[in-house]
């Protein structure tokens, strides 16, 4: 099946753009980014903290069966305009991947469809490429054991 998500990553640049059209009205699409329960399900992680407002912050954590923390990420919200825009940072804790700046733009297409643009800016082009090289295909979830192994090696 053809993927509905497009990614533009120009060689040597420290950014990438992810775009996707949804068969959802824009308010419903936006809701998925402000409802912590939905965020938890989409990202496959526990949401410890989620303050959807300017100067708010959020925290994700995933534990394995034994209760060990295998993934923890956090960020702050810099801009929050309902149904239009979210500007936030994202950082995976205890990894060498640095902080990324994410600009989410929500656009209505028709009454029933909408489009999301995610502009992600990394600290450097090298860092962006390292993140792209992570073995995502093996697990949708960041908490996948393989990824954890690699992160441990990078520590």
């Amino acid at each position, binding site marked *: 099946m053809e993927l509905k998500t497009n990614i533009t990553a120009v060689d*040597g640049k420290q950014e990438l753009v992810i775009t996707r059209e*949804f068969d*959802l009205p824009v308010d419903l699409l936006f809701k*998925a980014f402000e409802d912590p329960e939905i965020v938890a399900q989409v990202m496959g992680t526990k949401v410890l903290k989620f303050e959807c407002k300017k100067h708010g912050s959020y925290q994700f954590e995933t534990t394995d069966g034994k209760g060990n923390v295998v993934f923890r990420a956090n960020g702050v919200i810099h801009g929050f305009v309902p149904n239009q825009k979210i500007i936030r940072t994202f950082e995976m804790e205890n990894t060498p991947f640095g902080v990324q700046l994410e600009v989410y733009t929500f656009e209505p297409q028709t009454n029933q469809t909408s489009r999301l643009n995610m502009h992600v800016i990394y600290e450097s*082009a090298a860092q962006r490429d390292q993140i*792209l090289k992570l073995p995502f*295909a093996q697990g949708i979830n960041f908490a996948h054991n393989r990824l954890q192994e690699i992160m441990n090696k990078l520590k």
Partner: protein
Amino acid sequence: MNLRRDVFQAIADPTRRAILLLVATQGMTAGTIAANFNTARPTVSKHLQILTECELLGQEQKGREIYYHINAAKMKEVAEFIEPFRQMWDDRFNKLEALMKNYKTKNK
């Protein structure tokens, strides 16, 4: 190999990207490649060395000349880094779409 080389480091340089484009259609000698650039010959040689170390370029001896040609298999690797990442986001977004369709029905 003196330094740690990777494919991304190799294609981060605009001259090296231009060299790859140049030899994409046919194999060329270092001299022919260098003739296409205003850069000094040793600089072009250095770029060729890096591209060869990263296995983006292959070398083929034809008589007295060495021809450089593109190693398509390695080029593919670059695109393939993006694909799993794209697949991950696509899966996430499909899930989001399904969840929100359900959400809409539930909250009607």
